[in-house]
């Protein structure tokens, strides 16, 4: 059995680590879904609205050719034809709009201009949509897609409130896969494969103009900002800032900059790192087999130098310890001091690139990153265990002694 308070913290840390892992997994899976979808055939998301699907059946039944339409039927037929005509017109507008939305996927330039409806080979063939309206035959196709647009707004109202459903309903008016199939069957011109895959046509994609402009301005501004960083310490602005900070310090009446808790922790961290680096060097020196006297002497000098540095670090730690009767810890801080990676007064981060040359390399990189993170976590857990034990020992020592 582990002592109670020691194990409490350990279990809490383990739980935290498990949760963090689970969270990462979740996000990774989300990314995977998106990536897989991108590599499949691109289709308009969502299927035809269920309402739309139902309609064709009933309509077809209605319009299975009756032999002699009575006057009632004729009237109905006329109404229907008119409605269909209206729907076709609306359909044309819709498909134009739909094309424009799809246009950026083809090399046709900006959104604003109406792209050539006669889109060339890239076979989303929005031009087909235009031709569909003129084709009398694929009534079923039209019905499929235009019924929702036929002016049955009440059918759509319930879904208007929910954007997702509207989206789905809206999709129904776009040239859906079903419609395209019709085209394939009916249109004379041999059609290029109607689906879009990244593999075949990925290089034809183009980002919309507005977006491109904003993105390029963004990188330009970041470059400007990074180069505008004052590195020259004789700079007037830097001098003004230093002066201001000094004035702030003296105006406060305090003798000198007292090390804040954060700084102390950072320094302790640095000294710990110093320890590991020194140890690493020591191992290197001890394991190297000197071949001649110069190397031997050098090794000796290095070891002595390392010893001196270790002594200095220890001295610094003792100073820190003496300065701190207690170690006040502000509320809510994580127990690990994050290494100030470029934070604080250092240069700030700006968008940068990482170039890789092959899948293998990328995989190695990613795997190593995770491995390092995992090791880091393990080291942290061991330290937690150790800290608790050492602290308890010290307290025990005090109470007992």
């Amino acid at each position: 059995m582990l002592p109670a308070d020691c194990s409490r913290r350990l279990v809490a840390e383990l739980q935290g680590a498990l949760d963090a892992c689970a969270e990462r997994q979740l996000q990774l899976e989300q990314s995977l879904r998106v990536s897989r979808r991108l590599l499949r055939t691109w289709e308009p998301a969502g299927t035809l609205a269920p309402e739309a699907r139902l309609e064709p059946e009933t309509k077809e039944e209605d319009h299975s050719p009756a032999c002699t339409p009575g006057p009632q039927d004729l009237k109905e037929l006329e109404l229907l034809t008119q409605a269909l005509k209206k729907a076709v017109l609306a359909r044309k507008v819709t498909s134009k709009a739909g094309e424009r939305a799809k246009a950026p996927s083809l090399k046709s330039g900006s959104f604003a201009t109406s792209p050539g409806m006669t889109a060339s080979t890239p076979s989303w063939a929005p031009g087909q949509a235009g031709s569909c309206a003129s084709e009398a035959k694929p009534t079923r196709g039209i019905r499929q897609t235009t019924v929702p647009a036929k002016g049955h707004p009440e059918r759509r109202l319930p879904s208007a409130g929910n954007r997702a459903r509207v989206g789905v309903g809206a999709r129904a008016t776009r040239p859906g896969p079903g419609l395209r199939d019709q085209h394939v069957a009916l249109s004379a011109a041999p059609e290029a494969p109607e689906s879009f895959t990244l593999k075949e046509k990925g290089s034809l994609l183009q980002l919309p103009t507005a977006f491109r402009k904003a993105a390029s301005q963004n990188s330009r501004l970041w470059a400007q900002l990074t180069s505008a960083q004052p590195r020259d310490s004789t700079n007037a602005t830097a001098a003004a800032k230093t002066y201001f900070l000094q004035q702030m310090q003296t105006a406060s009446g305090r003798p000198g900059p007292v090390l804040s808790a954060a700084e102390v922790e950072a320094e302790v961290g640095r000294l710990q790192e110093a320890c590991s680096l020194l140890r690493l060097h020591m191992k290197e020196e001890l394991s190297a087999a000197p071949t001649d006297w110069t190397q031997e002497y050098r090794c000796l000098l290095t070891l002595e130098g390392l010893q001196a540095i270790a002594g200095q670090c220890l001295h610094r730690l003792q100073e820190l310890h003496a300065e701190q009767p207690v170690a006040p810890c502000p509320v809510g801080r994580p127990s690990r001091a994050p290494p100030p990676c470029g934070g604080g007064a250092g240069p700030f981060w700006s968008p940068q690139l990482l170039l890789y040359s092959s899948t293998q390399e990328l995989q190695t990189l990613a795997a190593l990153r995770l491995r390092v993170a995992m090791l880091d976590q393990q080291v942290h857990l061991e330290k937690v265990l150790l800290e608790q034990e050492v602290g308890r020992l010290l307290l025990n020592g005090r109470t007992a002694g």
Partner: protein
Amino acid sequence: MGRRRRLVDPAAEAGAGALPKVIAALSRSLPAGPSPEIFRRAKFDRPEAPALWQLLFRLLSPRSADGASASLALEAQVCLVKSALRSQGYPRLVLAQLPEDGSRGSRELLLALSWLLARGPLPEQLLAQAHVQLGDEIPVCECEALASPGPRVPHVEAEGPVDIRCVQWLMGRLRFRWRCLIASQQEQCTLLSKIHLYTRGCHSDQRLGHLSVAETEMLRDPEGGQQGCGGGVGQSLDLAYPKSLHSGQVPEASGMMCGWCACGWVSAHPPGSLLEMQPSLCTSCALGCFAFQLLRRLERENTGLEAALEWRRGELVFWRWMDTVLGACPPEAPAAATQPTFLPRIAERGLGRLELAARELRALQEELCEATGRRRAAWEARVGGQGRGPQWSSARQALQKAVEQELAALRWAWEQDRGPARPHGPHRLVRCEDEAPGGQHLRAAEVIQALRSQEACLEAALRRLQGQCRQELARLAGALPGLIWILPPRC
């Protein structure tokens, strides 16, 4: 702009107009920046404190807590700001004495803000944090992961001792999860690589050459992003704390029919407007469109960046003015004894860490002492017999110098916080096959090398700690007689 620095002489500027402009630029470059008027009034300690408290809170609160903390009451914000400033070493005590309700102290807050601004490039850091990530990002260091809130405060119900098998089980689960994570990520790498390959040649930016997943997804589904994948197309490779492209806002459901224009609700959007991106949608649909939101965020960031540039150009005026603000303050009373709150448990932890480090160093020192003693004895024995000619002494001096330099470099390694040149932060992945060396971009091979050495270091550290742990347990067992420790088999 290059490295030219225009020395801004306030007199040469357009007189009094320069200061408000610079302050306005500063405001625009900060999130939730107050108007220049508030700054001016703060100099005279007018009641503008709440706005400044909120600004400081926004600047000092950890990024990840943004959503939850936005709704904190003013008192809570005041408290957090005070403690954050204290932990950063803010020198003035007046701040700590300001009332908790946040009603007074605007001048002091102005000073605190300037203090933060003087210490580091605050606007740029904030802009970097909020940067819209368009690419497939991978962090090259762990500082983001560490900066996130650590394990939740344990409301652990485990009263009494915990069975060590429970701990072992948890550790096993953790190992399993890591393995799953690695496997999923390998797959993601393959997919990412393919997508980059297939979109070769599309990007207008020559440096990049291909699209990222986010950009491709935007083309596939411009108004999507809210549907299907549950609110995000954030495409960082290791999604530890990514910045999703989806800003997390759900567009309000519009009451009117905003479908695809079959309802005729679309009007022609003015050319050059942001809505141009989705001319086929009526206004409300366009506004909710994912691509549009992305564009809007980009443009907002650009505004912030421009403001930051303007601020940098003119900030000298501000600092001269801040000197006058400081002068307008009454001199501080001599410091009363500070009363740090004594929290035994935390003290234990803090002490533990210091003590741990001291112990490690002492152990190291002992080892070094022993090793050098041996070597020195061996050396003296070997060389003592030989003469000390001039050749010998010059060679010795050269060696000494060389060793000194090496050791100085070693010191620099940790004193400089691992060196400012070390890359950090998220980088955008770009597939680039040509082997052209140099260039200003980071290469995967370099990162891999750095990671390998880090891995070796960590493995060594882990082994050592495990050994130390075992020693400590043994010591504890010794200190508490009557207790029998059964150490678990090394897992």
